[in-house]
């Protein structure tokens, strides 16, 4: 009835950093533990019954093995921190909602898939999705369809499409409800662990 599409999060989370290198890359640019990937996102959710897409944008920080900080800046300020321990939402810097992983199907798979994706191994993804990968001169395109739509975490997902070159540039999620989410990423930057004290505190708070 109410499910958090953990698999979807897994897919973005994992493949944010899986990107074939070179001009028309076929090998992924890996973000290893200790590295930090930062970037900008724009999300447009086309939901049934809504006149226009729900648009939001902001920045994200991915620290493999630690978590993902999703900072919405527009239309309002809101931060979601996703870790193996659960999800923490901050509104205006204060805790607005906390969900432990014990209540969140799929979240635990996140790190397994993430590490697999980082090492360029799509094996774990193939256990849950039919993976179709194509390459052209602009970059690559990966289409993921759930193998078993009967699985609870899968039942909402119809199709995931990821596009990119060095990094993942776009994610499109189609749901069985007819809703479509489109996220575009830009300004990717990989650095050696330079999490700010605030970011570290946020990740720690969410993993609690």
């Amino acid at each position, binding site marked *: *009835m*109410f499910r*958090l*599409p953990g698999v*979807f*999060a897994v897919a*973005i989370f994992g493949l944010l950093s899986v990107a074939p290198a070179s001009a028309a890359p076929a090998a992924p640019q890996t973000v290893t533990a200790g590295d930090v990937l930062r970037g900008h996102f724009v*999300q447009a*959710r086309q*939901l*049934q*019954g*809504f*006149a*226009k897409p*729900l648009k*939001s944008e902001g920045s994200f920080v991915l620290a493999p093995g630690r978590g*993902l900080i*999703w900072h*919405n800046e527009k*239309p*309002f300020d*809101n931060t*979601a921190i*996703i870790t*193996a321990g659960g999800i923490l*939402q901050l*509104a205006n810097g204060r805790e*607005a*909602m906390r*969900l*432990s*992983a*014990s*209540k*969140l*199907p*799929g*979240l*635990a*798979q996140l790190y*397994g898939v993430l590490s697999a994706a980082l090492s360029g191994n799509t094996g774990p993804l193939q256990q849950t999705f039919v993976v179709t990968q194509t390459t052209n001169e602009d970059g690559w395109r990966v289409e993921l369809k759930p193998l078993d739509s009967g*699985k*609870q*975490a899968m039942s*909402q997902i119809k199709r995931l499409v990821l596009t990119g070159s060095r990094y993942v540039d776009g994610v499109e*999620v189609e*749901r069985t*409800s*007819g*809703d479509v*989410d489109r996220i575009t990423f830009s300004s990717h930057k990989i650095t050696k662990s330079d999490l700010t004290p605030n970011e570290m505190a946020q990740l720690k708070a969410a993993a609690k």
Partner: protein
Amino acid sequence: MIRRVGAIVWILAIVAAVAYLGIRLASGVTLESNILALLPRQERDASVQRASDRLANSLSQRFGFLVGSRSPEKAIAAAHILSSALKQSGTVTAFSSTIDQDAQKKMGAAYFPYRSGLLSEADRADLKAGRAEALKDRAMASLYGVGGMADSRLMARDPFFLLPSYLLSLPTSQTRLTVDGDVLTVQDGGITYVLVSGDLSGAPYALDFQKTFHKVVAEAETRMKAAAPDLTLIRTGAVFYAHDAANEALDETTVIGIASLVGTMALILIVFGGIRPIMLDALAIGSGVLCAFLGTLLVFGQVHVLSLLFGVSLIGISVDYSLQYFCEYFDPGAPDSVTRLKRVLPGLAIGLATTLIGYCTLLLAPFPGLKQVATFSVIGLSVSCFTVMLCYPLFDRHRPYQPGNRFVRFAAKHWALWEAKSTMAVGLRIILILALAAMAAGGIAKFKTDDDVHHFQSLSPDLKHQETEFARLSGTPAGTQFLLVRAANEEALLQKEERLDATLLRLKKNGAIADFTSVAQYVPSVARQSENRALVRDRLFAPHLAGYLSEIGYDGTPDYPTPKGFLTPGTLPNAGPFALVKLLDVSGAGEAAHVLLLGDVRDAGAVKAAISGTSDVRFVSLADDWSALFAEYRQYAIALLALSVALMFPLLAFRYGLVRAMRVLAPSLLAVVVAPLIATLAGVPFTFFNAMALILVLSVGVDYSVFCAETGGERKPVTTLAIALAALGTILAFGMLALSRVFAVHAFGMTMLIGIFIAWLFAPAAGDNARRK
């Protein structure tokens, strides 16, 4: 001639009984191994009893495994091997570790129509405090958030996503486990553990079931090791403890039984020589134990392994009667079987009478287990004694030994110790008494009682360790503590639980409890549901819905109906988390009652204080209740001990007169007082089981004094030899019990060992040195 007919009838009766026992055994016998089955069921409050039973039962049906491996895939594969093996074997009714999607759907379907009345505690507090904006902001965050936490279908039916918020606020039992696909896992120290847990289909204390379950697990473990060579298997559940305990008790029964039988036989062989005394002895012991087993089975329908354990020790006591008889071989004045029997008959009769008095007082104890032990013993001892009286004259062709046998000469010294007027004997007597007094004084200083049921139950440190690991890894507090909440009807009861919420939240905040689970959390009272509906309508929808919808650009009209009826416990399906709700309902006739589970109670005092002002709410702790019961019955056993003395005394006074009766009782009374004190020095605290042992020390010890009181003159050495052999036999049996790993049995054995030794040592002091029969 009459004697011969009597003996033959008696033997035929025993043969018939043994044959019948064989038939019963062949058709299978229920051996009970739950130590709590020994406890009385006399809780005066029927609801508390029902709640305790229900919970104890349900807890004992549960089992849990954590299947660990460094490789998550291998851990999952191994867990799958285990769960499918368990499923196939039919030993499991339901798995609680698999995410039952069907149950989740049923749960959603049951809640969905009533969603307008279901609010999480936090959301309610926000609405009541006028912070509806916070709920709107959260809904916006869900809509705009990463990965789209909310979709259009939910939006159309629950625009502020209040039902998901409510569902997520429901208590979860395993706080550290995460949902990973369709299994629950936890990572710790680089190892991934997968949970396999559920409910057993059979009784964990039934030996047959244990055996089957154990076999299935052992076979699965072999295959799991093949799938995951670095397998770690952590298990928890009453069934493992019960299996361990039953194995232990059965092993010990066998070892103790054989050891005491062999020891006794060896004694007889050494002292009396020849095969005939051994055959006669085996006849007495065998007829006693087998008839006792049959009698217990007939009376109770099943036999508790502890009765069996204590019962087998009877070998050591029932042999006393034959020993008395055989020792007459050393008496030149008793050349034939009829004279021998005539000589020992008064002693045997009084000995049996006093022993039976001791055991019969056990029958008065309202302990089902003790009744069994007592029944077993009364039948066994009577049959053994009658076998001696009826059959021995028929088979005994033994010629008397020549006087001056070395055993007799040696045994004579025991009597001399208490009779001789020499300085050395007097000095020895004084030293003995002083040493005993010194040890007793030392014991008084350290004396302490122990009634903690945990100490009696927990056997295997390995299993205990696994249980602790399981609780730590899964975050499942092993709780046997709860509140029993009662009211006139269900609605009033749910309201009462809701009023308790604030108290419990405060206790949780203070750390007195880790968590709590109530029926009202899953099914709010009708009053609470209508209040929630009004809150949502007046404080959220009326002021904020239109603005919210236009802000996010929603065109449609959300469907958020208010149904006529309300959600009630009766309308819930018995699936998934709702099965728990059904379990917690312990309502009886004319009264509604719910169990309110408390997770990990760290400060029982604070909980008791917090609910002290609330009527019809009671704090129940199963382990504490059992411990209190053991304390109560420890005192009860002491009272039984006094009763035994009171019942024996008139019998002894009738035969020996007041003063000599006191002398006959004195050695046993001394043993009863001093034995527990010396046991304390040996590190055994005084428990209910020690108290029970004292009753036996008294009844067996009095036998020795009686035999001494019945004898005189030249027969004294023969009698001391007989009681020395008797005491040795008893110590052979109970001394072995002292070696038991089962704490209760160990305590029992130690007390017996020390008590019997003292009673034997002082027994000749009861003899009348001037009297010659």
